[in-house]
């Protein structure tokens, strides 16, 4: 496989990814991965709960966050224009990118115009989503990831598996091995005798990246929030690599999804409380940077903002699905998800894994691939994700809505145009079964007849099912069918008069 398949999810049509269940099967069987994910997600789960419990107005903050985002989305055009005006007035330049290719072209052009051949990057979901590093590489520009987890992924020629901690699938010993074997290829080698204590690993990253920060002329970032009223961008981080990339280079390019807009400065008071507690379970993350255009004598002299659509307006067109655009990328939903914990992030085939990925990817990318059509089913609908979401995205609701889109098809928006989707293939048997069940359930008499037939033949029922039923019986015994259904018992014991109450009512 080419390098592209290792380092990115972009190019999926060229390298089709397996549907979620197949990809998950491998992860479920990987004991190290299971242990790594279990350890990390359980650690953060309890901490998040404690951090949230400190605020007695959490539910109100959550509701306010939801309302701010919903209001912004309802008036997104107006707020984007206001944002553009404010950024421009403050000395920035605003670019609009309808899709990933266009965003990559814009950024590549901007870097080329500086004459530089390398850039330092702050962890950014948007630039991962569009495959910016690969696009820059194709233009002969080296992009250095500077977030510790991103560095681990980049050095290991790996794929991210978590929104906040892209290398969550790696434990400390694996990280040490990657640093030891790969750092030298990218710059300063790992210190002699590097051990796997987290502090030493962090120190190794500090030394390795410092020379890159100090010489960098171009920085590339995303943003957590953009304030329309003031033109201010906000980056929330922990390590200080963000500050390095945002302040030391001469040119700063920020690629940001259009849904990251909030109307007013004041709105940050909600998200700066809910995001850190949901994300790293901290009262406040170590560093938050805000900047408005350029400032004389402080920080970059040139600032470019690339506003990215890439499927977001298609998502906006779906009135149930659009709530996914409220997401502030905290990853609380990943950390509580029992499916994510066992399937791992790679099974989602996207930089957006976990529950939010399961509703975001099929909307941003459509449901044309086997993988994207399988993602809405990658959930037991347990609702833990909705419970922790700081902007109250009802992920189970959207999952079920997208399942409908997969099995029923219908009219949706792709690349800004209305298209009619046909029901996805591979669901024919299920569709027939659902229809048959619907017929039976519409007629209590038929249901009773079926129950009686099952009871009469109960001794002959196999312990293991053939065909699709094997998926159940491979790991679980089937319940035994009782001699008598409840309705027959009820009739036998309560309705000795023999009156039939189950004539076809109401169907």
């Amino acid at each position, binding site marked *: 496989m080419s390098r592209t398949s290792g380092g990115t999810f972009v190019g999926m049509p060229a390298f089709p990814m397996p549907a979620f269940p197949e990809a998950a099967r491998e992860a479920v069987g990987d004991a190290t991965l299971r242990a790594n994910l279990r*350890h990390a997600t359980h650690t953060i789960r309890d901490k998040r709960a404690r951090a949230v419990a400190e605020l007695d107005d959490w539910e109100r903050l959550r509701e306010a966050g939801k309302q701010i985002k919903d209001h912004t989305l*309802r008036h997104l055009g107006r707020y984007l224009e206001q944002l553009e005006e404010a950024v421009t007035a403050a000395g920035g330049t605003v670019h609009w990118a309808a899709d990933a290719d266009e965003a990559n072209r814009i950024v590549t052009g901007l870097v080329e115009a500086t004459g530089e051949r390398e850039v330092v990057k702050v962890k950014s979901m948007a630039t991962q989503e569009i495959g910016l590093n690969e696009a820059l590489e194709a233009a002969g520009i080296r992009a250095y990831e500077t977030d510790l987890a991103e560095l681990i992924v980049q050095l290991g020629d790996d794929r991210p598996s978590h929104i906040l901690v892209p290398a969550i699938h790696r434990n400390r010993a694996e990280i040490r091995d990657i640093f030891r074997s790969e750092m030298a290829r990218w710059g300063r080698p790992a210190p002699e005798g590097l051990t796997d204590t987290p502090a030493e690993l*962090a120190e190794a990253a500090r030394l390795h990246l410092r020379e890159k920060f100090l010489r960098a002329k171009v920085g590339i970032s995303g943003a957590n929030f953009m304030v329309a009223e003031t033109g201010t961008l906000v980056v929330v981080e922990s*390590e200080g690599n963000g500050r390095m990339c945002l302040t030391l280079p001469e040119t700063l390019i920020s690629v940001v999804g*259009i849904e990251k807009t909030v109307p007013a400065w004041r709105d940050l008071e909600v998200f700066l409380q809910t995001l850190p507690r949901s994300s*790293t379970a*901290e*009262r406040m993350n170590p560093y938050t940077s805000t900047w408005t255009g350029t400032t004389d004598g402080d920080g970059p002299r040139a600032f470019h903002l690339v506003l990215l659509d890439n499927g977001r307006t298609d998502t*906006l067109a779906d009135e149930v699905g659009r709530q996914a655009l409220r997401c502030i990328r905290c990853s609380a939903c990943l*950390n509580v998800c029992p499916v994510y914990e066992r399937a791992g992030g790679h099974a989602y085939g996207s930089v957006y894994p976990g529950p939010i990925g399961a509703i975001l990817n099929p909307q941003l990318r459509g449901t044309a691939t086997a993988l994207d059509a399988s993602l809405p089913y990658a959930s037991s609908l347990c609702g833990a994700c909705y419970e922790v979401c700081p902007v109250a995205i009802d992920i189970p609701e959207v999952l079920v809505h997208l399942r409908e889109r997969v099995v029923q098809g219908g009219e949706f928006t792709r690349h800004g145009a209305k298209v009619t989707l046909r029901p996805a293939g591979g669901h024919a048997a299920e569709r027939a079964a659902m229809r048959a069940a619907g017929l039976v359930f519409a007629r209590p008499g038929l249901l009773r007849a079926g129950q009686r037939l099952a009871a009469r033949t109960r001794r002959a029922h196999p312990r293991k099912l053939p065909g699709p039923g094997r998926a159940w019986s491979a790991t679980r015994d089937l319940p035994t069918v009782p001699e008598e259904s409840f309705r027959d018992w009820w009739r036998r014991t309560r309705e000795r008069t023999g009156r039939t109450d189950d004539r076809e009512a109401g169907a």
Partner: protein
Amino acid sequence: MSSREIILGRIGRALGPVPDEPYEAAVDRGYADAHGDLTTGRTVDLLAENLADYRALVHRADHARLPEVLARLLAARGARTVLVPPGLPPNWLADSGAVPVPDRAGSTPAQLDRADSVVTGCAVAVAETGTIVLDGSPDQGRRRITLVPDHHICVVRVPGQVVSSVPRALRRLDPARPLTWISGPSATSDIELDRVEGVHGPRTLEVVLVEGAESPDRACAGTITRG
């Protein structure tokens, strides 16, 4: 058609006709402006506790003793050079033997990297989250001077610069200025989702809570170090 028009057009079609809805009416602001009704003294204590909880080293002093405390902290660190923002009150470093290095427009990041420490004031501090905010005022300087050195001493004037909550801090700050919110030293949760201090930013953050007016009548409490 420009991409700008394309995107704005897609948004318009996605949303259809939207009735006008004033921003002020769109959000229920019933959440707390601050958590708990704390006295001024208790708010400052909470700031100290929360700073220390995220491994900032917290000290208290009054104005008269500030130069002495700063000198001691720099000496204890073994700092030979200390970066100085242009508007730092000159007497703050009067007792220190470290060589002050003014931040010049022409200094390169590599030159800044050679400074052992940096001393600044701050714009506001947030008690509930243990956060100090820098806004590039003359006593804080450019963003990079508090980033590149490995040791940052930040002086917070208490109680005047302390607010209890994030909403109150935002109201005091000017979004037009570049802001840096700092809560403890640089840290990461990237290894097994557990927090470890010390990556790219200053690995040691010391915060001096300086009390009272500039008059020296209040006795100094020396220092308390937590965490």
